[in-house]
């Protein structure tokens, strides 16, 4: 039986800070519906964030939440998870927070395969500081720090995180809100580092600067440019050129960090006991 979304919200913290048309509310509701679908108790969920528009999300959530410093959410979350391995620890973060200032923590959390679930609200821009380009701003796009078009290449975050060792990576969009929620539910259920890139829209600082005047145009863009893996397999490289793939993009079974930690303690303790 699905609970209303307000069950998981600190409604006294409303109104939220997000601009009109911002996709972050859609991603947040996808996270909450995922939590609800798994039947998780509120007390068994801890939500951690860094700094930025996306990282304001935990402030609105009625779980135990920790709002930390810029880029370091995964480091704080690692501390929580190692102390309380039974908690479902969710990290809600933005593309600037996760992929720029926090990029180092991201690859090492994935490498360790610690059982955290990271949702990256990717709106391709630093929204909170009014539109500087991020590591996820596509080449050629405009930003306040790229007034003639961006000259760098963005990360493929899913590829990066999977290559670094994660157990599960997936991508969804705000337009495909229900599938996004299902991907997040799968990610939470995975025993290992799981990562979902949620393509979100920032009409205020990204859209307006890049000929997408409002959220509807941007959601349309998501609809037009997202293809499933199966659909992609039927398209030519030419047809795939400006598309991105959504859905589960990588799964693997690897030993999980906190379990390994437990077992090494057991092994070491046993050895000591034997010696005694």
């Amino acid at each position, binding site marked *: 039986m699905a609970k209303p979304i307000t069950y998981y919200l600190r409604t006294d913290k409303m109104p939220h800070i997000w601009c009109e048309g911002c996709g972050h509310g859609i991603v947040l509701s996808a996270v909450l519906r995922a939590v609800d679908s798994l039947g998780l108790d509120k007390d068994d969920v801890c939500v951690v964030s860094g*700094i930025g528009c996306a990282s304001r999300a935990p402030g609105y959530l009625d779980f135990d939440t920790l709002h930390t410093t*810029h*880029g370091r959410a995964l480091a704080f979350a690692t501390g929580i998870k190692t102390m309380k391995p039974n908690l479902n620890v969710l990290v809600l973060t933005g593309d600037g927070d996760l992929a*720029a*200032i926090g990029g180092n923590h991201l690859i090492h959390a994935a490498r360790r395969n610690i059982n955290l679930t990271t949702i990256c609200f990717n709106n391709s821009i630093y929204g*909170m500081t009014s539109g*500087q380009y991020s590591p996820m701003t596509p080449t050629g796009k405009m930003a306040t720090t790229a007034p003639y078009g961006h000259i760098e290449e963005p990360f493929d975050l899913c590829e990066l995180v999977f290559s670094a060792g994660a157990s599960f990576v997936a991508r969804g969009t705000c337009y495909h809100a229900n599938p996004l929620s299902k991907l997040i539910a799968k990610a939470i259920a995975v025993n290992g580092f799981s990562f979902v890139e949620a393509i979100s829209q920032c009409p205020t600082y990204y859209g307006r600067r890049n000929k997408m005047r409002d959220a509807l145009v941007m959601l349309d863009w998501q609809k037009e440019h997202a293809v499933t893996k199966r659909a992609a397999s039927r398209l030519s490289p030419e047809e795939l050129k400006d598309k991105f793939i959504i859905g589960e993009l990588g799964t693997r079974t690897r030993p999980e960090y906190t379990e390994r930690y437990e077992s090494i303690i057991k092994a070491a303790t046993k050895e000591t006991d034997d010696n005694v």
Partner: protein
Amino acid sequence: MSRRVAITGNEAIAEAMRQINPDVVAAYPITPATEIVQMFANSVSDGKVDTEFVTVESEHSAMSAAIGASAAGARAMTATSSQGLALMWEMLYIAAGLKLPIVAPIVNRALSAPINIHCDHSDTMGARDSGWIQIYSEDAQEAYDNLIQAIRIAEHPDVLLPAMVTMDGFIVSHGMSNAEFLDDDVVRGFIKEYEPKHYLLDVENPITVGALDFSDWYFEHRRQVADAHTRVKDVVLQVAEEFKGISGREYKLFDGYKLDDAEYAIVIVNSAAGTAKTVVDELRAKGLKAGLLKIRLFRPFPQEEIVEALSGKKAIAVLDRADTLSLMGGPLYIDLRAAMYDSPGPRVKMVNYIYGLGGRDINMEQIAGVYNDLVEIVKTGEIKRSVTYLGVRE
């Protein structure tokens, strides 16, 4: 001709940076300093400066890039606030230890936790022992003037130390006020070209920067940093004298307001000094000999001059917009008390007020209350509380 404009503190700093035209600026966005670099970035993209502008992935990298650039002989700058400055902490000591004259405007903002974007001085006060010169500014005009002078001070061959110029977040950075800008060629003539004596990639004179330095020489090198600081005061005054020649505006190590004949003095930095001066005027009109000392150069600390200015006062209140949590008061107070230990004559009564953390307003009534407390202390000869948190819900 100089221009008189209505301007925010951030705009004033961005304009000064455009005029300074540094070789390298490396920065990362953070409220409330973002605007400075954003506006400067526009100057870069509009071709108004020759600067290499590096958009790095964190403040730690911003200061690292500035250090690299400065070591290679560039005039390098960055700007930040709060957590950004905190993240630079490791690199601040390196910039000072390598004696690299990097200049950075810092927009004062509270430190986490809890998260807060508004003004207090925890960020720069936390960096007070890093070896950087620190110059505090009351308003946009002072911030603009101080930043231009800081280039000359930092790069002076007798000094060669990094310098930060601070102003209050939002109150000054986003508040509109009148300011006068100098002409571009006047500024450029004043700051001159930077001509470093030693730098990387000088193939005729190869050097090593930041090498391992154990118990054999480390101590001597750190001693040199302290030695450089002993020469800062004179350079600050000399640069101020020259600056007066181009601007007509006078700067010293600190600013005394109705201080000479004052019996009761407040010591303060940055924007709240403006509020306090108005209180001084009101109290003077009522016949109370109130005065104020606003520190401009906080690092290095101009002990002799400040002690001389404050000696003979009946009572002094030091207002700190930061806490040290040492339970001995804020950073200004602790330094002032230590400095006054050497003052001639009977010991002056001194108290501390910690105010305005996280952007909490301080108003004229509260400052008038501080002067009243001083009068009471002198009357009774008794200090009830040496450290008071002013304007907080207890």
